[in-house]
């Protein structure tokens, strides 16, 4: 999952930021100020999430944030597909139209991220319970 986010960030950051902004604009969902803001910030957010995921830092929060981001992307892609818009996905740079295949791929990534979030939360919960048990035993 970290690799996916890092690669997504790389494909966007290697181009002028306005190229990604145009990808966002093609969805015809947001006003210009929002398109420009997201065009500048999303690649860096993806980079940050990728690095945090790779290092396993605050995994339950990072995975949840990644899942939310992927969920939003997936939702608007489904919406665009349902509207019949012939546009690029914008997920990993330009030149990849939204098709059933891209929706399937991103759906799988979303499912994987949700699974990661669940596992991270569960692991944290188990650690917490183990710690509590240890403290109870000691006292």
């Amino acid at each position, binding site marked *: 999952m970290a690799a996916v986010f890092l690669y997504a960030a790389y494909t966007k950051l290697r*181009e*002028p930021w*306005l*190229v990604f*902004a*145009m*990808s966002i*604009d*093609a*969805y*015809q969902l947001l006003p*210009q100020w929002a*398109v*420009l803001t997201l065009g500048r910030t999303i690649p860096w957010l993806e980079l940050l999430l990728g690095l945090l995921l790779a290092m396993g830092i605050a995994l339950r929060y990072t995975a949840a944030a990644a899942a939310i981001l992927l969920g939003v992307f997936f939702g608007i892609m489904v919406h665009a597909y349902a509207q019949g*818009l*012939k*546009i*690029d996905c*914008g997920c990993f740079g*330009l*030149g990849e*139209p939204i098709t059933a295949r891209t929706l399937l791929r991103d759906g799988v990534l979303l499912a994987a991220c949700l699974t990661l979030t669940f596992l991270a939360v569960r692991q944290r919960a188990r650690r917490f319970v183990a710690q509590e048990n240890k403290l109870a035993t000691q006292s």
Partner: protein
Amino acid sequence: MADYVDKGKVYLIHHEFPLPMHPHAMEAACYACAASRVGKYEQAGDVLFRTQDSWAASGKVDQTVCSVLTPVEAQKVRALAKDPAIIAEVQQDIQSGRNANVSATPTLILTHRSKQYRVPGGASYEILRRFIDQLLSQ
């Protein structure tokens, strides 16, 4: 066009990319190319885009293009549209489009200092203009 092409800031180069699912697209592309030989590419292109639902169904590409030409021009264009050189030119455009992974029309590709940027379909002119201005300022 008015902001950049007419002011000499940008060159606009048209390429044909008739899509295989449209039965009369190849013929229309050949007519448009032929019209460019008599200096009427814009007019032919405009009328073809504007009325594509009509000629796509009826197949009346010749009548559509010739409606914006003089009788002399129409005669020349009709002959040129069947010229192997024109057909080869369209085929070459198609191959160039495939090499550039073009899958839909219109597709706009910006070339700046040997680097190409494909403009996503559906992007608004305001954002596109910002991008062009950014490239021109470099």
